[in-house]
């Protein structure tokens, strides 16, 4: 028996779009070549661009295909920052949150440490919710110095949804660009690039049923971005490198499916989530649901368990055939105390005892029941093993 409840890490490739992918793999031609074969490949790529633009709610010219979320975040944050500071070195503040994914967080920290940027950490409450009053006031007082704002749409660990529309509206009053990492949001919560008002948005294919290795950066037509990836000048000159028509195709197909099925997907997952949350609270009454009562993506269930180590919980559940995650970033398999929870004001010890159960399109009630059956013994075992620092 093997139950997969780590869809936020990666979700299985959707079988119904695999056939088309394999067929596209057999098409010869570089989309940038001039001959007929190249034109055929280009046609597939541009079909994919149309399809993805429709799913995301943007113009086709705003879709920049990349290798995935991390590359998209790096291109956007760096590109926007360099463009903003180019003629105005004083305009060097990047507003971001301590709960961001490392893909965005580390680029900001790099710019702060090495390239004249000043990172300002948004004020969050213990659910990770950003204080919009603080943001408004900070912008009113420092707008001329703010280069960009980078806030993720859905937090990949806790599932918390940030109010991107409100954030963009505040930024727009001062003409400040906003980047959002929407990797955990796209296909999971209602999302429209155009309506959100953000400047750039990072997407990834493998969180919605496409393979690893394809993603996109949505860049508003009027965005001013410095070029940080040099080469053949593909994708509006922002992301050089030969494009994969088959990967773009399967990404667009997955996006189309996910968006079309979003209402049904949400309605189907809601009772799963409620059942898991209730079962966890029954077994571990002092467990804390990380995002509290704040709005969140139904597919991410994240708890901290006082007195337990996430490693132990993960090991015992894995031994019982249930794949879940501690939610936090790994470095060669070492689970670090979640920086997300730390940024939400938890202690290192609290942050160690975390567990993320994430659901996807293929999750069934049988998976949920298998987790609920395995959980009590795993919890008791992890409590017994205690924290490593004890």
């Amino acid at each position, binding site marked *: 028996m093997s139950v997969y409840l780590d869809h936020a890490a990666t979700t299985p490739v959707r079988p119904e779009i695999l056939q088309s992918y394999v067929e596209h793999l057999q098409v010869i031609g570089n989309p940038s070549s001039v001959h007929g074969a190249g034109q055929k490949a280009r046609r597939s790529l541009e079909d994919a661009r149309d399809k993805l633009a429709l799913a995301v709610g943007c113009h086709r010219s705003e879709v920049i295909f990349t290798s995935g979320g991390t590359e998209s975040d790096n291109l956007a944050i760096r590109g926007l920052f360099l463009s903003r500071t180019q003629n105005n070195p004083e305009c060097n503040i990047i507003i971001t949150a301590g709960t961001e994914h490392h893909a965005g967080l580390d680029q900001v920290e790099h710019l702060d440490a090495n390239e004249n940027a000043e990172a300002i950490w948004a004020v969050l409450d213990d659910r990770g919710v950003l204080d919009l009053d603080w943001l408004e006031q900070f912008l009113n007082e420092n707008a001329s110095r703010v280069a960009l704002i980078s806030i993720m749409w859905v937090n990949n660990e806790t599932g918390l949804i940030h109010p991107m529309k409100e954030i963009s509206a505040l930024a727009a009053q001062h003409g400040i660009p906003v980047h959002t990492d929407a990797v955990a949001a796209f296909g999971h919560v209602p999302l429209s690039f155009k309506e959100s008002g953000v400047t750039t948005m990072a997407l990834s294919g493998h969180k919605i049923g496409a393979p690893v290795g394809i993603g996109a950066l949505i860049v508003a037509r009027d965005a001013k971005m410095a070029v940080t990836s040099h080469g053949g000048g593909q994708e509006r000159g922002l992301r050089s490198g030969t494009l994969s028509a088959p990967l773009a195709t399967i990404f667009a197909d997955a996006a189309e499916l996910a968006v079309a099925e979003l209402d049904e997907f949400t309605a189907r997952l809601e009772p799963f989530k409620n059942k898991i949350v209730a079962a966890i609270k029954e077994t571990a009454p002092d467990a804390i649901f990380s995002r509290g009562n704040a709005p969140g993506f139904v597919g991410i269930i994240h708890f901290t368990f006082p007195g337990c180590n996430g*490693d132990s919980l993960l*090991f015992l559940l894995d031994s019982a055939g249930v794949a879940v995650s501690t939610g936090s970033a790994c470095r*060669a*398999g*070492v689970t670090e105390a979640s920086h997300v929870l730390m940024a939400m004001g938890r202690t290192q010890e609290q942050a160690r005892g975390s567990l993320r159960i994430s659901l996807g399109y293929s999750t069934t009630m049988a998976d949920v029941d298998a987790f609920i059956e395995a959980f009590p013994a795993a919890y008791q*075992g992890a409590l017994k093993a205690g924290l*490593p*620092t004890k």
Partner: protein
Amino acid sequence: MKVLAAMSGGVDSAVAAARAVEAGHEVVGVHLALSRNSGTLRTGSRGCCTIEDSMDAQRAANVLGIPYYVWDFSEKFKTDVVDDFIAEYQSGRTPNPCMRCNERIKFAALLEKALALGFDAVCTGHYASLLTDQAGNLELHRSNEMAKDQSYVLGVLTEDQLKHSMFPLGAAASKNDIRKEADRRGLSVANKPDSYDICFIPEGDTQDWLSEKVGKAPGKIVDRQGNVLGDHSGTHEFTVGQRKGLSIGKPAADGRPRYVLEISPKTKTVVVGPQAALAISELQGSKYTWCGKSPSQTSDWAEVLVQVRAHGDAVPAKFAIVDDQMVIRLDEPLLGVAPGQTAVIYAGTRVLGQTTIDKTTSALPVNAE
């Protein structure tokens, strides 16, 4: 049995895990993360703690077809091994961090966690033999491979710990055979170099590393009669038995070289003297343990062999427990023994027990110089 194989990423622990799998146990590989800031690639002769080592361990576990996890013991390792190492040097003692790691991490924190999570034993790639006597008691013996024997660093294990330990390399013919076996089993670490250095000290330069941690604390270098011979910038820069780098201008009256005999951080004093005064006739320690069943009587002097460092020879001695101290009288005086080192006592090849040395007695009285 359900066995947790501690896998460092080296060839020994990989083969040990392979043998445990072959013996029919249900084996899970676990790599211990001992540093929060591990480097990317292995350098020099350090054999663990980088991401490359962790990947090597994972690769070996994959080849063996066993589950693999990395468990974080970095905080405990820092307080119980690294900080202890610094504190011992600061108190003028010569610690053995590998021993502390076995005592407090591998066969304590890791073993406890393993037992709590449903394992029966922890398996490591140490070269030592775990045997059972006729009465069914566990005994730890030297490895058949004397050149690699690691029974000394396992001397800190107690009977309870031995019950949950497994050393599948015990009967190994030679390290070379282990490498051949690893190669035959398709383990890519077959030719990975041996590790010698202390894993948490980069570049293998203990004195530099310590100076950075401890800072300077200048004091005097004196002879056994109390005459001041020179200055030093910190007692941690010295180890008992050291001859080089003393920077004493004046030669000794007899013209012979002088050695560090004693280190007293409290008075910031380093005592030097003739080589003959380094010869130790008696050791004692208040913290002692028995490796296996404790001896039925310990008040009478018993003939044993004693080993005071990982790669040293075992020498004949007599031991007894006197006023709750393990006292070891050496048959012949022994050079280079310092407080902080561990004395492991053997009956033939069997490890009887150990003590951390608190006090040494020189074979050469001060007035005989």
